[in-house]
């Protein structure tokens, strides 16, 4: 799984984009999106997902159930 951003509540502050260690988050015309092929849920970088930790709006960054859970390389 990766994370995804709920468009209807996101205020477009770009905080998540700037914190992502994988440059997985991008913005076009104030619409943010997470590239599921790049998001590692911050595994391998930080204890907590950075985007989720800095996002000011509750329940805006959510688990993306359409993608399989990220597997850390062994």
């Amino acid at each position, binding site marked *: 799984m990766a994370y995804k951003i709920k468009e209807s509540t996101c205020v*477009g502050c770009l905080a998540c984009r700037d914190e992502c260690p994988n440059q997985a988050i991008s913005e076009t015309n*104030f619409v943010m999106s997470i590239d599921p092929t790049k998001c590692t849920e911050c595994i391998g970088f930080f204890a*907590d997902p950075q985007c989720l930790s*800095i996002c000011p709006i509750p329940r805006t960054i959510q688990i993306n159930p359409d993608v399989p859970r990220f597997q850390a390389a062994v």
Partner: protein
Amino acid sequence: MESGKQKTVALLHVMQPAGQKNSGTGCASSGGKGKSSCGSSAGQGDLSPEVWEKVKNHPCYSEEAHHHYARMHVAVAPACNIQCNYCNRKYDCSNESRPGVVSERLTPEQATKKVLAVASTIPQMTVLGIAGPGDPLANPEKTFKTFEMVAQSAPDIKLCLSTNGLMLPDYVDQIAALNIDHVTITINMIDPKVGAKIYPWVFYNHKRYTGVEASQILSERQLLGLEMLTARGILCKVNSVMIPGINDHHLVAVNKAVKARGAFLHNIMPLISAPEHGTVFGLNGQPGPTAQELKLLQDSCEGEMNMMRHCRQCRADAVGLLGDDRSAEFTTDKVMAMDVTYDRAGREAYQEKVELKRQAVVAARNMELATLAGEHSDVSILIAVATKGGGRINEHFGHAKEFQIYEVSTAGSKFVGHRRVDVYCEGGYAEEDSLATVVRAINDCQAVFVARIGGCPREGLKAAGIEPVDRFALEYIEQSAIAYFKDYLERVRRGEIQHSKRGDADIRQGALIA
């Protein structure tokens, strides 16, 4: 700028000090003048000679200068790294702005062009601030890039920065290297237990902290940042939001702590909170202070330190002088299409003229004050003034969107704050309940000075015990206030009127959008 998500492009973030944030946003005033702006041309108060040298003519901090210069903000910093209970992140940072103002978001290149466009058109614009919409130091690349670009093209513009302080210690070197003129830190507590009621979380070192721990980190970083800046001789102002029942008494301790660390000015602002702002405090019914509660706290801190009263908490203020809004000329689209040449010589010539005008205002005040010499009385009164700026009584009562409040005694006159009111006379007819709004906002004043006033509101004000005064129309505010006060004392002495303290007044919730 077209999708439904695009926030309405906000007005140009110019603070027109016109006498007063806010802000948000036109801030400046009696602060730099020392605790008593009473008496002649400003007192150094407890400021050190070096600080005094920097602030005595500062467009943000000298009261006289403040009435004649404007400052502007550019919205290049959308992200924030903490959460405040008085903030709704759908809008701009409430530390310096008012809730309810939607954000725009500019790139450093767009912002620089906007600054040059405004500075070329409005020569009294002399200070550029970055304060949000989030926290400038949570967006360090964009913030410092904007400052660098502006400093290169317009080296005469002073730069300032407002921050929640969390990342401040990390950027003190950069702030010093860029010659940033002054920094404002919002400090609402020094006790993390108090902080836990104001800040639900902070994001620090890649982790979200909550509760007392969050405020512990925030407070340590704020005070450390303040110490580091003042050690380098950079001017630091502290803003505090007064939240009754949470930090109101505690702010006296905050005042002492920030003074001890070298802040030269402390600005206590009222919490602005209403359910429609969608903030935690707004939704749980946390009230803001009344005008009297705010003034009492400011007065009790003033013994300790210079206070700043003029702040309207406005940040997205209009462009141009009050009542002459020019923000429509500077939307992002228009600015980007403009061909801007920065006319430094023209600006300097204009500013010289402003200086002469400013000196005339001070001279008039001092002359009038001299006639009070030798008089002593315990009486002090508040006067509300309708003005468009320039230090004169030049606004019609019915057109005033806010009133400036002056306190006058035998010690002299001083500016003590603003009261925002609804436009009383919309389209030429007056409604009764709008007069009631004005009365509530200036209920603690003995008189209201106006350029003109209609018969109906005149009677209404008298009935409420506030004397409407139009005989000083177009005159200088402080000179007139002192003249009025002399006459007032005379009338009290002759027994024509009886002096009694007036009641409390409302601080109006919501934004002043000129």
